[in-house]
């Protein structure tokens, strides 16, 4: 194993354990790891974005269309976010990004997310699709606030509540599954990556010392 790879694995293991230490309590190791992660991610992201912007620019510059340098100037105007006097310049790249995103989104969202969803929701072919139709309609009535939920409407919105609770329950179940998967991923890294696994006894020893020190600091009652 190369020294660089060993160091990377060691750093990965140390960061993982430092972040896990938050489960015991907030501590300095956790904060160092948290800030290092955010800093590294931001730095890496900035590098990739800069490289990509340069690559995307090249074909236009190769054709002699040097006015495409204007896009670099517009992008750099983001920096004025930190300048109180010229803050208004920051609004131009923001407006371009948000405007184009909304334009691309809205043009197709009405069809994809609304109109196209009505047909498969309302066409009943089996028990499953019937349940879907009932669930959507009753769920929508739960959010209907124009009339007081009395009489038949009360039962409809109550049924909608049950469907919503079932949906939240399913989402919670899959969330738990996701979190366990993340834990498995990190534990497999810690247990099977050399030399990261040497850090586990060190972390356990530090945790025990921490717990003992905490216990000794705790005020005793008579």
């Amino acid at each position: 194993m190369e020294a660089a790879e060993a160091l990377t694995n060691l750093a990965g293991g140390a960061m993982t354990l430092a972040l896990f230490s938050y489960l015991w309590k907030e501590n300095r190791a956790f904060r160092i790891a948290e800030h290092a992660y955010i800093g590294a991610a931001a730095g890496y992201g900035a590098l990739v974005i800069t490289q990509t912007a340069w690559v995307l620019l090249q074909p236009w510059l190769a054709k002699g269309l040097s006015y495409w340098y204007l896009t670099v100037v517009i992008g750099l105007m983001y920096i004025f976010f930190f300048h109180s006097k010229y803050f208004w310049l920051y609004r131009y790249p923001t407006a371009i990004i948000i405007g184009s995103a909304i334009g691309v989104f809205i043009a197709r969202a009405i069809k994809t997310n609304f109109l196209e969803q009505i047909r498969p929701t309302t066409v009943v072919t089996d028990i499953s699709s019937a349940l879907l139709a009932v669930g959507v309609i009753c769920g929508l009535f739960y959010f209907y606030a124009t009339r007081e939920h009395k009489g038949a409407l009360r039962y409809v919105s109550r049924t909608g509540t049950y469907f919503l609770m079932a949906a939240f329950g399913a989402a919670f179940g899959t969330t738990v599954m996701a979190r366990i998967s993340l834990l498995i991923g990190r534990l497999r890294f810690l247990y099977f990556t050399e030399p990261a696994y040497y850090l586990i006894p060190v972390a356990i020893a530090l945790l025990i010392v921490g717990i003992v020190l905490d216990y000794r600091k705790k005020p005793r009652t008579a």
Partner: protein
Amino acid sequence: MNGGGWGVASETKSLYTKLQEIDVRYVYLLIWIVVSIPILWPIGLPPGVISEETTRLYQYIDNLPQRSIIVMIDDTGPAAAAECHSGEIAVLYHCMMKGLRVLFYASRTDAVPFIDDAMMKVLGKTSDQPDYGKLYVNLGYIPQGEIGLAGLAANIFFKSVDAYGKDTETMNFFADLPTKTARDWSLVIYYGASNVDWVVRQVTDPYGCPTAGGVAAVLASRIYPYCWDRVIGFLTGLAGSAQYEVLVKRPGEAAAGMDAQSLGHLAIIIMIVLGNIGYFASRRKIPRGG
């Protein structure tokens, strides 16, 4: 009461109350132990029934003619990689076995290394081998999520240089594509923990290319509204990835993690049941109106 120094007379708590007030750190410790044991000493629990979502994706890819184009959108950050990345590797392996063409791109900066990793694990190399530019191409990072995908779907040479600085317009991979748009694609697969609706919006509805997913489990419930006319199948978290590994007969990290996943869930289910018993039993002890 424990500590506090308030001088309040100590009150005896019932077992049910204690059950609900248990220090959450014991729960973390228990989960750590329960998940660690099968990782270190695999039990070999059966993989269970392969879900309809996974089977549909497998069958769709399996029935595609050779040299069909699969576009893999990698939106996997380090957090989602534990769930989605093994599925991506299994699907890539399947595509290579079937002689399909795969076009990768990353829609977020921290997904870039995962494309290289998938290629390394399946093909042994990234760009420096003869099939690169013929059977697979990595476009690297394309910014702005939905806008980037809209651009790529409208013009395959939207990013005319790949992740390694090679010119895509001269690549054999794209030579026989009639429209050079998403109409030439057979399937677009999204990997990540965001949502597939932007892929459906920009590729499936306008160009007719179906969508699939290898998604974090938490996202699964948001995909069902698009099944099965627009999303033809998807892998749900680590379990879906493990099922696909079983289908392509190439057990990997996901299959290895399923013992731990199952035992972890079992521990959580037991704790939920115990917590609820404690809750209902302690509620019964409170006199009505008091």
